[in-house]
């Protein structure tokens, strides 16, 4: 995520460290110089991600959920769980910001395609729906899964069932030619233009 951030803003590749706080900057759209949006990058460390999500979810006009396409197979449960938490959050459901799932690290050969990632996530979220709603109710009576039921009850979970627009895009912060190459961010930038 933090690699994408300067790439979008200035086109340069920077070395990054694991972030412990958010970073924000104003981004001018390449086509239309007059409109600008503020990009906010949140840390992904498991002890921090929920905290920062809480802080910024109300202000979000759109959410980019970045997925590591290479490590996806291993981490599919964690990814799905975090995505589930984003999707059932009452503020997010109310505002229904546009959601883009950016499958990053496509320059690596073993990266999964966006289609595959979408299928896997749908399956996993389907299972999570069941297990989360079956969890014991919380102490003061409110269900842990939230009163929101993700998607339609009878059918298998599908991203089209969500109230917000969800798109999948492949991108690469590093570019296929290594650090010096151009980052492959066209899909991301196009989507940003659409959203803005």
């Amino acid at each position, binding site marked *: 995520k933090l690699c994408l*951030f300067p790439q979008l*803003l200035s086109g*340069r590749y920077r070395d990054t460290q694991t972030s412990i706080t958010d970073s*924000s*900057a104003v981004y001018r759209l390449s086509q239309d110089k007059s409109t600008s949006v503020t990009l906010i990058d949140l840390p992904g460390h498991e002890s921090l991600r929920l905290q920062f999500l809480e802080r910024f979810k109300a202000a979000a006009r759109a959410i980019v959920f970045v997925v590591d396409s290479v490590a996806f197979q291993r981490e599919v449960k964690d990814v799905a769980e975090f995505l589930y938490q984003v999707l059932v959050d009452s503020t997010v459901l109310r505002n229904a910001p546009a959601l883009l799932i950016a499958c990053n690290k496509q320059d690596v050969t073993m990266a999964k395609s966006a289609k595959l990632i979408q299928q896997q996530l749908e399956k996993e979220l389907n299972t999570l729906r069941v297990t*989360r709603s*079956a*969890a*014991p109710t919380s102490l003061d009576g409110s269900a842990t899964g939230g009163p929101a039921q993700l998607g339609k009850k009878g059918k298998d979970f599908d991203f089209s069932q969500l109230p917000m627009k969800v798109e999948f895009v492949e991108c690469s912060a590093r570019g296929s030619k290594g650090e010096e190459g151009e980052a492959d961010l066209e899909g991301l930038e196009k989507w940003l233009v659409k959203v803005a």
Partner: protein
Amino acid sequence: VGFQKILTLTYVDKLIDDVHKEFRDKYRNEFQQKGALGLLNGTFDFKDDFMRLLRDAEESSKVRAPTVMKTFEQSLKSQKTVKCMIETRGEKPKEKVKNKKNKGSKKDGTEAVAVPSKASAADKQPSAAGDKEELTKDEILQKNREEFFRRHMKAGEKSRSPKPDAQKEKGKKPRVWDLGNSNAKVLDYSNSATNGSAEACPVEEFDPDMALGDKNREPGRLYDLEYESDDEGEEEKVVQNPSKPSVKKGGLGGMFGMLKGLVGSKSLTRDDMDPVLEKMKDHLIAKNVAAEIAVQLCESVAKKLEGKVMGTFTTVTSTVKQALQEALVQILQPQRRVDVLRDVMDAQRHRRPYVVTFCGVNGVGKSTNLAKISFWLIENGFSVLIAACDTFRAGAVEQLRTHTRRLNALHPPESHGGRTMVQLYEKGYGKDAAGIAMEAISYARNQGFDVVLVDTAGRMQDNAPLMTALAKLIAVNAPDLVLFVGEALVGNEAVDQLVKFNKALADHSMAQTPRLIDGIVLTKFDTIDDKVGAAISMTYITSKPIVFVGTGQTYCDLRSLNAKAVVAALMKA
């Protein structure tokens, strides 16, 4: 930077501060003008500066040679001549005069130097080693007086220039007590001849400088008590808030100061927060949080808030409360996934049973909550095998048998496609618990059970042989989930229990990464109304999530933790 405790580098904190300040000062303009883009686009050639700072820090921390004890020759005692230790009445006034003259010149020198300067932790003693001086009683008195003045003016001290002393003493010298040397005669200042007549008093040698102390003062002016730490403190605060361009204390004084305090842009100091934190700490302890945990929590909140600029119209109390609340929610919110059902499904796919072990001290509710959890699992369609590894307590096996019977009555095999949802695996009393557990798991694998719940005997954390036995059971059987069952009524004991249980599990495991407690079951939650502090203590110590909360003795009394509600109950007055 690595963990300080592992590397034991004493200079790390100071180094970080120095680097922070230096970097900020050097690139201040870039940040201020360009903001985040400046960060991204600018090049920061800081490597040389960093290496220099690192070298300085390392050198400053080099181990100093252990201080050598003073030899006798160097000590003060050897410098005192026999002459000065002998008191003779007649010579006294002459000596006094002579010494005063000497003292006068020397004293002026030191006093001029004793101008108030920034106290930079100078701890030089006035009578440093190697100080060679003749010390009469009066000299000692004067020395003390000077020290007194010096301390009050917080001056940097200069060590006395050593005066050469020729005589060296041999033999035994009478001990000279600095302040206890006077006899009644010396203290008797009344002069029988002059009592009653004013003029006939002998004129005392009055040294005005000595009496007034400071040669450089303006006559007639009353100085304030110098209090330098305040200046340094303010400087620190300014240093710590570079990015907040808020309106700093300008030259406004007087009544505007009061308004300033209301309108904010005041930064928090430790002293402001201390009374509030004390109150919060007592409040937490009253809510059954373990005492050491409450102290540590308040400490960390204080550290986090130190130097923070408060917003407008917020009081110190509200800021501290807010920060404490956030910290508590952060503690209680599980960082790892707490989804047992998901993991059971995974194990199901791999055709092996999911093993859960319950451990805890006596009487916390292991068997009861085991039954509740098996009910919950059956409701979700998983078949359960209960392993009765409590082979000590009378009636343990019968208790589990009764639960099994009841659960089977509630969920008869007919409604689940013909298979019994819950079965009990027991081998009576007195046998080895680890062995029974192993047999139960292989039985479950053969019969196709989804979950195995292992019930162990309650044991005190101090009971070494029992703790070893538990550790062996867990190490040998490698369960998927080790749950520590703790009651919500426990107070400071919670800390001790958890620490000792974890320690025992770690010590007796042969593996590289020992299996420790993975989750906590908090039981008897219905018996405490809002004294929910045990939850905080337990999660703080282990940093593992609270997986289940038990709120009663029927099968439906199983809940999951709602972090916000618990924190709200905790912070409620």
